[in-house]
């Protein structure tokens, strides 16, 4: 499937996340908590040839727009991605990702001794650094493989 074909196979309403770094599409679905069980139509394109990126992934989710929290985490693992909000088959909004200052409740802390892993009534909070994120509670810095720390419910 070419970039062109994907763009023209329009969805009536929902979100198209384009220009995802090749190989990250499944992590994007994990962030969105999409595993097919809630019934929305999801299309995933992987390793699609792209002039800009060589290869890229695309995720299309029908009937769903993203929350700010979701966009924030997305920007950490797929900073190049663009988000197209579709209504009535048209792109009504195109968002480029900006790194947030902090992400709340989405990542889990890799430090087993962190209070956020101790069954306490708190959400995780991470400050976003230039090259990683940092737990506001135990101060652990995570630089590699952020997607592995997404707290999927």
């Amino acid at each position, binding site marked *: 499937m070419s970039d062109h074909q994907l763009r023209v196979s329009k969805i009536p309403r929902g979100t198209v996340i384009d220009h995802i770094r090749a190989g990250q599409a499944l992590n994007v679905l994990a962030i969105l908590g999409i595993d097919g069980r809630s019934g929305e139509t999801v299309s995933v394109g992987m390793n699609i040839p792209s002039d800009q990126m060589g290869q890229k992934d695309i995720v299309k989710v029908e009937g769903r727009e993203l929350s700010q929290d979701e966009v924030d985490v997305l920007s950490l693992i797929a900073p190049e991605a663009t988000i197209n909000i579709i209504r009535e088959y048209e792109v009504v909004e195109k968002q480029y990702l900006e790194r947030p200052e902090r992400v709340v409740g989405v990542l889990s802390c890799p430090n087993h*001794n962190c*209070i956020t892993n101790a069954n*306490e009534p708190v959400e995780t909070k991470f400050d976003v650094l230039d090259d990683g994120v*940092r737990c506001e509670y*135990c*101060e*652990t810095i995570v630089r590699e493989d952020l997607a592995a720390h997404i707290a999927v419910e």
Partner: protein
Amino acid sequence: MRHDHLITAKQLSRENVEAVLDRAAEIDADPAAFADRHDDAVLGLCFFEPSTRTKMSFETAIKRLGGDIVDMGSVESSSVKKGESLADTARVIEGYADALVLRHPSQGAAKMVSEFVDVPLLNAGDGAGHHPTQTLLDLYTIRENAGLDDLTIGIMGDLKYGRTVHSLAHALTNFDADQHFISPESLKLPRSVRYDLHESGAMVREHTELDEILPALDVLYVTRIQRERFPDENEYQQVAGEYGIDLETLEAAKDDLTVMHPLPRVDEIAPEVDDTDYATYFEQAHNGVPVRMALLDQMLAEREEDR
């Protein structure tokens, strides 16, 4: 968050530190003048980890200010054992006390509790995280013996898990101090602490051998290397031997070197050092009371003004 919680040494500015140390010096000079200052104050002690020493030091401090304590007791005998969350325990105990002291094995515990309680909270150790009241008494001891500016300090031992080390290193970035860190490769400063020291522009050097730097030091701060950090006994013995000091080691040191240790020690400092002018660790331990009195005095005074 209340401005008067003390969670990490990072929140201490030079002015904050100096205010506490100056007050501690006043208390040291004339303890009787402070005897009834807070005679209606109750300090809540929440120790989720055994730490008799720190606890006694807080207890003495509040009693010398005329106040009293409530103690949640050991974890085994409390509601925690029935599965109560820390957030709930703290919210119950804050109703009994004017300020809380928390020691907990999880990193970030004090920061979390500070989001739930409305009385001032003092972090008395959160896992491998922070121990800011220890830092204040360390700074007091350094100031009395060597001065806090134009200081060359060596911090040796378990730098990875040692929370007293992390807090002290952060606090020293407020002063004109060259910090040298001496440890085996496996117990070097954690990434998060190095990151903060780097951000603050502090002068930091890491060493694996004490000899390299000992002659230049004004203060040598020794910490305990714990057996449980090493998979086998032989490796532990070897490392413990390398990062311990005795009279022979100290021959290369300046005559006015100040040797400190947060105690308890095991073999890191040979008992023969105790009778020399270098040994400052018992004085350091005693400084815990005036420094904690100063801190509590400041905290409780602010609280009384709020009322």
